[in-house]
C-alpha cells in the first residue's frame, strides 16, 4: 500500500527538469485583448503572444505558454513556474526591486474610460463614481493613488475582461486602462459604444513606469542579454513592424 502511494505521489508531481536549451516557458494573462487573449478554441493569440513567438524563433527555442492570473505573475515567476513574463508588464521601479526587465518592447499610455453621459472635468468630477481596475496593475496603483482621494470607488478585479463584463452590466461606471487595450478589447465592440476615453494621456512614470518589457528572475544576465538581442533583432528585420501592423494602426514602440 505504501509503495502504491509513493508511486502515485511521484507520478503526480510533474518533474520538469528545466531544459534550458529547449523550451522557454512564457507566462501570459490571456484576458487582455488585443495584446494577449485566446481564440474560441483556446489558442493563445495577440500582440504579446506573436512577439514572444518571434523572439523564441530568433532564439531557436520552443515557446510554451503558461496561463497565469495577473496578480500572481511575479510570485509565479519567483516560484519558477515559468522563465519569463511576456504579457504587457510595465517596467516600474517597484517591480524592478524583485525582478529584472529587458528593454521595453512597447510603450503606450493609459487613460480613464467612462460613459459618455458623464461630464468629465478633471479627476475631481468623477467623485462618487465606480471604477474597476485590474488587480496588481499599474492602473490600479494610479487609481488608488489619484482617484481614491477624490472620492472615487475603486474596485480591483482579477482580470481586465471581467472589468468589461461589469461595465457592460452597469455595475461599474468606467475603468483606467491602456489606451490600445481598451480600444481593441472594449471600445471597438458593441458594448463599448457608449464609452469614451477622457482626460490626458497618463504617462506618469511613478505609477506607469517606462513601457512594457519582458520580466525575468534576478540573477540571469545571459538570459536578459539573449532576450534583449532578440528584441533588437526582430525590430531590425521587420518582424516587429509586421506584428505591430497586424494589430494596430499606429507604432506602439513609442518614444
Amino acid at each position, binding site marked *: 500500500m505504501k509503495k502504491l502511494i509513493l508511486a502515485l505521489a511521484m507520478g503526480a508531481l510533474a518533474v520538469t527538469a528545466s531544459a534550458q536549451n529547449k523550451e522557454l516557458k512564457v507566462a501570459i494573462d490571456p484576458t487582455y485583448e488585443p495584446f494577449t487573449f485566446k481564440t474560441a478554441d483556446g489558442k493563445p493569440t495577440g500582440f504579446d503572444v506573436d512577439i514572444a513567438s518571434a523572439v523564441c524563433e530568433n532564439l531557436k527555442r520552443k515557446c510554451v505558454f503558461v496561463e497565469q492570473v495577473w496578480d500572481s505573475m511575479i510570485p509565479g515567476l519567483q516560484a519558477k513556474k515559468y522563465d519569463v513574463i511576456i504579457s504587457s508588464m510595465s517596467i516600474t521601479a517597484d517591480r524592478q526591486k524583485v525582478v529584472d526587465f529587458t528593454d521595453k518592447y512597447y510603450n503606450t499610455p493609459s487613460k480613464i474610460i467612462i460613459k459618455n453621459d458623464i461630464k468629465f472635468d478633471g479627476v475631481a468630477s468623477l467623485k462618487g463614481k465606480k471604477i474597476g481596475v485590474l488587480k496588481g496593475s499599474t492602473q490600479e496603483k494610479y487609481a488608488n493613488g489619484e482617484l481614491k482621494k477624490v472620492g472615487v470607488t475603486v474596485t480591483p478585479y*482579477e482580470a481586465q475582461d471581467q472589468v468589461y*463584463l461589469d461595465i457592460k*452590466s452597469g455595475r461599474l461606471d468606467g475603468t483606467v486602462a491602456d489606451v490600445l487595450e481598451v480600444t481593441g478589447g472594449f471600445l471597438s465592440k458593441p458594448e463599448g459604444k457608449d464609452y469614451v476615453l477622457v482626460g490626458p494621456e497618463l504617462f506618469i512614470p511613478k505609477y506607469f513606469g517606462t513601457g512594457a518589457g519582458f520580466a525575468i528572475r534576478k540573477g540571469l544576465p545571459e538570459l536578459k542579454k539573449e532576450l534583449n538581442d532578440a528584441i533588437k533583432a526582430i525590430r531590425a528585420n521587420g518582424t516587429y513592424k509586421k506584428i505591430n501592423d497586424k494589430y494596430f494602426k499606429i507604432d506602439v514602440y513609442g518614444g
Partner: protein
Amino acid sequence: MDWEVIFRPESLALYGEGLMTTLWLLVSSLVIGGILAVLFALALTGPWKWLQRIVGAYTFVIRGTPLLIQIYMIYYGLGQLEWIQARWDDVWPWTHFKDPAFCALLAFSLNTAGYTAEMLAGAIRETHAGEIESAQAFGMSRLQVMLRIVLPSAMRRTLPPYSNEVVMMLHSTSLASAVPGMLDVTAAASRIYSDFYLPFEAYLAAAAIYLCATFCLIALFKLAERHFLAHLAPRRH
C-alpha cells in the same frame, strides 16, 4: 520565513477587516438561510406534492452544483440579464443586485438553505409517529402540531449534523474572495501574497485564523448540544 511582514499593523488590519467580513457573511447567511431552510423543510414534508417537487428540484440543484458556480451565476449571470439591468438602478429590490456583498450573501444563504432544508426535512420525517398521533389526539391543528411538537424535536435532532454544516459554511466563505470587491480572510491573504511575495506566511496566517474560528464554533456547538440534547446524554452520576 519572513513573519515580520504579517505582524505589521497594516497587514494585521487587513486580516482583521477580512475576519469581520467573513464573520458577517457567515452569521448573516446562516440566519437568512436558516429561516429559508425551515420554510423549505416544511414544504418538503408538507401535503402538497407539487410544492415538494419544486423545492426538491431546488435542493437537488443546490446540492449538485459547486458553490463557486452558484456565486458566479448570481454575480455575473444575473448581472447580464437585461431585465435586471433595466431595473437595478432605481427599482428597490433589484438595486441590491448591483452590490457584490449582496450577491455573495444571497449565494451563501441559498446554498446553506438548500443543505439545511434537506437535513431538517429528514429529521422531521423521523419524528416518532406516537408523538404526532398524541398531538393529534389532543386536537391540535396541523400548524400547532408542527410548531409545538415536530419542529422543536426535529431541530434538536438536526443539531449534530448542523454543526458540520456551519463549519462547512465558515470554510465556504473563503470563496467570497472570488467576488470582486469582497475582502474576506482569504482575499486578505492573497493581497499580502501578491504584494510581498510570501505565500507560506500569508496563507498559513489565514489557515490559523480559520482553525481558531472552527474550534470556537465546535466548542459553541458542544455547549449547545449539552443543553438541547441533554435528554440523550449518558448518565453523569
